[in-house]
């Protein structure tokens, strides 16, 4: 019996120590903030057929809010995937959120058709982030809590 228990605890320790597969759990704050940023971005992209300068303050505020969330994601344990995705979105050299603002700044204004197509691309990138957050470990966190509660 004792040998069996020791064996079981050894297996648990081995599994628990597998750091490479640890992932962050679902975070309501990340989820909510990402959706807020998606909505704010959509609103701002809608103005991109206007002059960049007229919207510069709003653009800088949005980028600041995105930078804050990116920093938050960076410092969460086992959250490398989300952080990597946010880095892509905030990279001016890529053609997503930050890249679009850089393009808009260079061109001063963009055509309505391009604005609509770019908006679809950027909204899709936000959906990738949101869907990933949803897929995080809500279910098994609850299972673990159930086990602890049942055995009090």
């Amino acid at each position, binding site marked *: 019996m004792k040998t069996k228990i020791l064996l079981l*605890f050894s*297996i648990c320790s081995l*599994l628990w120590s597998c750091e490479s597969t640890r992932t962050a759990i679902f975070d309501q704050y990340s989820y909510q903030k990402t959706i807020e940023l998606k909505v704010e971005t959509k609103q701002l992209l809608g103005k991109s057929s206007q002059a960049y300068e007229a919207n510069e303050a709003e653009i800088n505020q949005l980028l600041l809010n995105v930078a804050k969330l990116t920093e938050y994601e960076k410092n969460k344990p086992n959250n490398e995937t989300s952080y*990597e995705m946010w880095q892509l979105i905030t990279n001016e050299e890529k053609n997503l959120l930050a*890249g679009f603002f850089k393009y808009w700044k260079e061109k001063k204004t963009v055509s309505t058709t391009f604005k609509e*197509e*770019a908006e679809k691309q950027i909204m899709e990138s936000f959906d*990738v982030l949101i869907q990933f957050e949803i897929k995080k*470990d809500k279910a098994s966190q609850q299972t673990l809590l159930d086990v602890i509660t049942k055995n009090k």
Partner: protein
Amino acid sequence: MDIEKVMKALKENLLLLTKETYKDIKPELQKDINDFLSKSQEKIERWSLLLASNSITKDEFEWLLKSQNDLLTLKVVQRAGVSKIKINNIKKAILNTVFQTVIGSL
């Protein structure tokens, strides 16, 4: 604009990406890539028509093409993360079973 050529180049780049960077999750990625390629083709065709009708400029067309590549990178990163979550769920299910078994036998 030779869409076939663009699609061929896109497919080659995707295969290289899965082979080199994400070889551990290649089967799951393959499905995502196939879906992505078919959606990419629709978009590229639509953008090509817009370019041909001067509704967008050549710069804008190029920007959109690159954004599609960047979206793919994003989805590949997401898929790697999802695979990690699945492995983690299996690990936690095993742990849960072990806990239940040990506690039940005490």
